[in-house]
């Protein structure tokens, strides 16, 4: 038989239990820290913040601290630095091509090790295969595509009309690019060029642009294990020669290097009729262009071609099982068809899965604004972006070779030979 006192005590105990339960529930909050880079125009940080906020609303038990860390290089450095000094970071968006290096540093875990259910395993296969090329090594998935792009050609339709060209027929191949480019060049009375035919940026990510030319010429820059490069194959030499010729022979492009960062401005100011740039710039161009512009595949030589580019989600090794599950949840949310569709619309980056293009948002957007689908359609011809062990060093070798050729300091063959030899020496240890 219960007396009143006991009952009272029971109630009190219950109350304590409930409050402490609530407290532990609050403590069971999983905190995630992720670093992410931005490498194209527009207020992308706000877009990311908005997505994170939505995720937190849907998952009140997870707190996400998303840290914007500059360009790809900064983001990688910051994330790794945080890990090294014991600060938390469970996942990050980093350069898709960092995969070998991150593996060498023993910093990341594969998604295959984190997924548990069949449904999750299927999810791993839901992305465009071309986008997985940089994320998979030996059949294991290390990176999930997020802010991914290909290179596309933006062109000024008004200028095409003015030059008597068909604005619906951008150059389809290398010869047409040179030919049409020449028609689009405009000079002033002194013979100084007022408007160039085309511009391919050669600072920042020259190796990326070169990867496109190489692919169009039917060759890849490296193997998928990331321990061999093919910089001095005849196809590469030919591709680099063509790039140089656009400036020095056909005169459709300025000589010397062309700045990646100011190129969009050049295009918007009408200083060039065509530019090759990341599709991630699409929304920024769309918002600022006061002329009629089109977006097209990069011209083909043997075939169409562009490397994919951009950032993947990686999961860091140093995390508790709970954090890992929460991180996976976040990655799944950020790459879900709806979010991918919104992200694509807001930025110009690709919807990373076919399902993203099946959403109403993207269906409608693509119908209104067909350029939004160009990058996706080009995926069929896409290849992996240059990714090797010690990727920073190897990239720099190729970048330097390209810039030396564009500046007339070296011939394509010798520059690429030297880059290849040095790359070989660096990669011999892997």
């Amino acid at each position, binding site marked *: 038989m219960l007396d009143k006192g006991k009952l009272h005590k029971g109630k009190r105990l219950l109350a304590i239990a409930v409050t402490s339960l609530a407290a532990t529930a609050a403590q069971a909050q999983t905190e995630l820290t992720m670093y992410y880079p931005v490498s194209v125009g527009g207020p992308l940080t706000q877009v990311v913040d908005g997505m994170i906020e939505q995720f937190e609303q849907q998952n009140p038990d997870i707190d996400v601290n998303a840290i914007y860390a500059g360009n790809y290089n900064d983001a990688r*450095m910051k994330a790794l630095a945080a890990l090294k000094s014991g600060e938390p970071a469970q996942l990050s968006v980093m350069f898709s091509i960092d995969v070998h290096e991150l593996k060498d540093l023993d910093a990341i875990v594969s998604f295959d090790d984190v997924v548990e259910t069949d449904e999750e395993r299927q999810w791993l296969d839901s992305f465009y295969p071309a986008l997985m090329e940089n994320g998979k090594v030996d059949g294991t998935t290390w990176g999930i595509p997020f802010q991914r792009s290909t290179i596309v050609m933006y062109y000024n339709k008004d200028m095409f009309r003015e030059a008597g060209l068909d604005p619906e027929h951008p150059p389809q191949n290398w010869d047409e690019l040179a030919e049409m480019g020449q028609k689009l060049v405009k000079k002033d009375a002194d013979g100084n060029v007022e408007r160039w035919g085309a511009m391919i940026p050669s*600072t920042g990510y020259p190796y990326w642009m070169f990867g496109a030319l190489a692919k169009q010429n039917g060759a890849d820059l490296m193997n998928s294990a990331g321990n061999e490069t093919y910089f001095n194959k005849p196809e590469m030499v030919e591709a680099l020669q063509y790039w140089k010729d656009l400036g020095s022979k056909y005169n459709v492009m*300025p000589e010397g*290097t062309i700045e990646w960062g100011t190129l969009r401005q050049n295009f918007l100011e009408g200083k060039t009729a065509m530019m090759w740039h990341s599709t991630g710039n699409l929304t920024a161009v769309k918002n600022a262009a006061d002329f009629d512009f089109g977006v097209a595949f990069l011209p083909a030589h043997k075939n169409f071609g562009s490397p994919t580019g951009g950032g993947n989600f990686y999961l860091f090794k140093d995390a508790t099982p709970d954090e890992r599950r929460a991180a996976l949840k976040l990655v799944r949310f950020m790459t879900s068809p709806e979010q991918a569709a919104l992200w694509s619309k807001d930025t110009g980056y690709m919807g990373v899965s076919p399902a993203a293009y099946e959403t109403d948002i993207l269906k409608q957007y693509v119908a209104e604004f067909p350029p939004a689908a160009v990058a996706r359609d080009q995926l069929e011809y896409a290849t992996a972006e240059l990714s090797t062990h010690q990727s920073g060093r190897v990239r720099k070798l190729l970048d330097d070779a390209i810039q030396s050729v564009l*500046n007339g*300091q070296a011939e394509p063959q010798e520059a690429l030979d030297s880059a290849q030899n040095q790359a070989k020496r660096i990669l011999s240890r892997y």
Partner: protein
Amino acid sequence: MKRLSWLHAWLMLLPALAMLMAFTHIPALTTIWHSLFYPARGSEPEEFAGLDNYRMMLDDDVFWQALNNNLWYALVTVPASMVLALAMALWVNGKIRGRSALRLAYFTPTMLPMIAVANIWLFFYSPEIGLFNKVLGWFGVAGINWLGDTDWALPSLMLMTIWKEAGFFMIFYLAALQALDRDIYDAAALEGASRWYRFRRLTLPLLMPTTLFVLVNAVLNAFKLVDHLFILTKGGPNNASNLLLYYIYENAFSFFDANYAATLTVVLLAMLILLALLQFGVLERRIHYR
């Protein structure tokens, strides 16, 4: 009491010395130590490399280019910014119209963060839309690809550096000029010495200590000021504007090869210590005549 004096002295020196040791002397030594190892792979410990890193450096064209660039960079920016600084100081020390506005104008670059203002220079240098080429265009001169041409990239960086530095050094010259004894000048003027003569035989020698001080600072800055590279050229095209410290940064924080970065740092340290010894020789004399 007297006996404790040395103890007091050491106690007062201790905090500063400890910090200097921890962040200057000891790291200078550990730099040498770390340059003798291969970079760590994953969680494995570093492996002793002997002089391999140094051999790699001697074979490294980029290192030689960066070193060469850096020497030219110093050789041009140091005298240019010093001469300009002196000229500016003479102007704003004399009776010139709008003196304080000018003084402020010369000094502004010192207050602007290099990294932010580099973006504005990026606009000046931008070949198609930039200000410099626009101005050249008015005179019918074809534009220059300032930052994208291997011949122009380094000079373009130099120009910005001179702009950044001259105003700062001007302040030191200005302070020195204002402290000069007017009587000597009046006497010299009475004797009919020309302005140029007075400048050469009086002002310049009297400014010698300042010149020395500014010189040391300017040389140092030539080796440590690389902020603008991050925005303008990243050392390109093809390393035409690469400088030692930037290359060290790249190796340590982009290529994750802290050991090779240490090797490069040793070279930079050696150069600076050599300069320091030179300077001590001169400085010593200066302290004595005080």
